């Protein structure tokens, strides 16, 4: 062990280039022994790139890395692991059909007579989980345990390999509020044991609640490293974004009108042919935003896809504007007045190799005034595109560039422009702000509220509880493909929603009552 005044990790002047992009520009980071250090920045600021340089997934073009005072060339993850660095990725790298024990020892299995010694492995896993207070069931299969548990397995995996320094990449993104609290206490007990932790995040509240110090980076550049106590959430936001940001969304009370969408007892299967929607029922009225809160993978994707004709329903009824839609077909629903902001903009929402003007007519490309039967009116299309780009503040040199040349936020604005321009009666917005910068988030939130005020019905599906709470007028909680409860936003708290998202009945949640069904 090194002297206490030394740093666990020091990264000096790290520069990393990608084709056409300077992802890290002379970035410094210092991690003290036993501290929790937040790495804060917007999406695309270069946080993950910096950590990938430390973990050896990428090699920095310039700059030096010191681990416990020793200069190290981290050419691949094995070097990082040998120096006591462990990384828990945003998307877990576990083998689902394997047991917890098997996953933890994977790559360093204890062996006896060239056979894996499962008994020893299991014992080691139990010991290590006891030592750090990370309770897991060593014999459970990873596919059968919750996401929070899977994260523990990932952490244990790193500890098993002897990690002294842990990198957690957006660890709270997939957790319910209660699971976040558990994670925080785990992190604290780890630092008590002398571990040092870097955690990557773009959530300001977490920085304040969890970290001792924070390093802020913006557009690949180091901005500042400070004690978290010495700055307010607003100041941190300004550092991260580079200008004043309004964290609270102003909106007047909703004036809901007639019911636009009515879903009764909806069943649908997922891609693995398992039932993902188990009798979901809810309705959305004009002039309101109904938020669907839930942990990822509880049927949100399937719900969106059924409502937009991209997935077959097994049973149940969908009534739109008072009429039942027997066979939802994408094209017909489009024409009936349902717009859709898909959760995966690059896979569903845009043709990345198409120009902006071509993308802006996707879905109405065969209709007047954009086309007649055998001829596209690209002149009209381009004129319309220029108007939309201006109206929706899409930052681009012109309408001819390809969608892939835009930043994530501008790509999302492009989709919003296309979907809002069609003046829909119902807007299904799935993860409308995932992975985009704060400026674009603010803009899209404003636009959603504006649509609501224009008497449109909006169904909002989001994994970000903050987003659901700040935008919705009513909140429906989805759990295992069922709507467990619908609350007015005034009655909803993060704690209450969190418990329901984890499957608790509303009666079990203190003060919860059935509203608005």
């Amino acid at each position: 062990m090194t002297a206490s005044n030394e740093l666990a990790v020091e990264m000096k002047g790290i520069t990393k280039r990608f084709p056409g992009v300077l992802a890290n520009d002379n970035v410094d980071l210092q991690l003290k022994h036993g501290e929790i250090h937040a790495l804060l920045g917007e999406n695309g600021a270069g946080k993950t790139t910096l950590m990938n340089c430390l973990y050896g997934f990428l090699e920095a073009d310039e700059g030096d890395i010191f681990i416990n005072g020793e200069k190290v060339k981290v050419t691949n993850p094995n070097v990082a692991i040998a120096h006591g660095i462990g990384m828990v990725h945003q998307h877990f790298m576990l083998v689902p059909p394997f047991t917890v024990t098997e996953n933890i020892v994977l790559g360093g299995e204890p062996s006896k007579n060239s056979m894996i010694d499962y008994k020893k492995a299991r014992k080691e896993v139990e010991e290590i989980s006891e030592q750090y207070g990370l309770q897991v069931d060593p014999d459970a299969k990873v596919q059968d345990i919750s996401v929070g548990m899977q994260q523990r397995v990932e952490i244990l995996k790193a500890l098993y390999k002897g990690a002294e320094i842990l990198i957690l990449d957006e660890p709270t993104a997939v957790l319910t509020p209660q699971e976040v609290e558990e994670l925080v206490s785990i992190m604290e007990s780890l630092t008590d044991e002398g571990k040092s932790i870097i955690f990557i995040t773009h959530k300001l509240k977490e920085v304040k609640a969890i970290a001792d110090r924070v390093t802020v980076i913006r557009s690949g550049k180091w901005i500042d490293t400070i004690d978290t106590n010495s700055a307010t959430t607003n100041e941190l936001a300004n550092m991260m974004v580079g200008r004043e940001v309004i964290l609270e969304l102003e909106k007047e009370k909703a004036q809901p009108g007639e019911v636009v969408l009515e879903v009764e007892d909806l069943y649908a299967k997922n891609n693995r042919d398992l039932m993902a929607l188990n009798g979901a029922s809810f309705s959305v009225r004009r002039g309101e935003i109904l938020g669907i809160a839930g942990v990822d993978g509880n049927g949100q994707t399937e719900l969106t896809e059924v409502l937009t004709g991209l997935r077959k329903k097994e049973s149940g009824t969908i009534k739109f504007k008072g009429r039942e839609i027997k066979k939802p077909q994408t094209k017909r629903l489009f024409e009936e007045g349902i717009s859709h902001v898909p959760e995966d903009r690059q896979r569903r929402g845009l043709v990345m190799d198409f120009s902006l003007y071509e993308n802006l007519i996707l879905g109405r490309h065969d209709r007047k005034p954009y086309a007649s039967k055998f001829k596209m009116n690209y002149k009209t299309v381009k004129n319309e595109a220029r108007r939309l780009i201006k109206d929706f503040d899409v930052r681009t040199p012109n309408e001819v560039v390809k969608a892939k040349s835009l930043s994530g936020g501008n790509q999302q604005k492009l989709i919003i422009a296309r979907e809002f321009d069609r003046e829909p009666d119902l807007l299904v917005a799935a993860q409308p702000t995932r992975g985009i910068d704060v400026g674009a988030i603010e803009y899209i939130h404003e636009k959603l509220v504006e649509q609501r005020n224009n008497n449109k019905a909006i169904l909002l599906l989001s994994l970000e509880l903050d987003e659901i709470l700040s935008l919705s007028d009513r909140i429906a909680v989805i759990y295992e493909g069922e709507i467990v409860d619908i609350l007015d936003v005034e009655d909803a708290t993060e704690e209450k929603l969190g418990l329901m998202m984890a499957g608790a009945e509303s009666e079990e949640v203190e003060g919860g009552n059935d509203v608005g069904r």
Partner: protein
Amino acid sequence: MVDKDISEKKANYLKSMKIFDYIIPILSVVAGLLVGAIFMKIIGADPIEAYKVLWSSSFGSMRGFSEMLVNTIPLIFTGLAVAFGFRIGLFNIGGDGQFLIAYLASAYIGFLFQLPMYFHLPLAVLAGILAGGVWGGFAGYLKATLGVHEVITTIMMNYIALYFVGYMASGPLKAQGGLPATPKIFDSAKLPRLMTGLRLHWGIFLAIGAAILIYYILWKTPLGYEVRATGQNSDAAEFGGINVAKNLMLAMFISGALAGLAGTSQALGLEYRAYQPFGFIGYGFTGIAVALVGKSHPLGVVLGALLFGVLARGAMMMQSMVGVPKEVVQIIQASIIIFVASEYIFKYLVRKWRERKGDVIDAS
């Protein structure tokens, strides 16, 4: 705004890389010729002499020029067929089968009855289009309804076409006499020749017309929009209400019809009957190379077909005049395809070079 600068720079960067889409095929041709020269050196031939012959065989005389274009016509059609398939994300390997079916169908209409030319010729051409289209479209149907991969079905259907046409030409439709072929077609179904004494026929206009039509379809019509959207991202196409299955079938029909036109022009422009085939001529396969070199763009396909037409013509002349075996031309063709296909390496090197120059653009 900072944002604007970034996307502008990024767009400029992508634009500046786009020029390599044009440069790479040209560089590949040059590199392919160099590889050919090395092989000639190894076997003791004079590459400069050989390449002079290669050039003059196509451009040294009217006859040579005509013969070269005769080679080019079917390659434009099959090249377009493959290119159109690529645009929607399908790999039509069945060009040879579609060629043969259309070849027989056009010849059949050609000898079946005598009609006025303005009626007979279009009818015979149409027969080829339909036959090739249905042959290709069936593979599209299997793909769209049952998810059977088009590479498998089109390869298999090549053999069905080969033996079916062989059987028909040497059996039920065989002309009297010893020749395993159908009767000769009537003059009214022939694609006229451009000049007496030369074999070049009106098929060249059909081919260029087809290239223009395909260009128009792809970039000027709603169908082309849907085809390209489906090819680039079928999930997004589905999201946009596009009937992906229908478009797959239609695209395979069009692709098959294009390959079929190669067979049609062979029957109506050159051979005036359908012979029993003793194997694939390989236009369908060469069409893949043409589409690759031409970057699946109709103009690129025409240029690529010309290149392969020149090489095919030159292969024979180089063998007879400077003793370079015609296999060397196959080496040249193969190297060109390899170079085009390894475009990633070119782009990678350029990128590295630009990075070294410090010509890097801001963070995204």
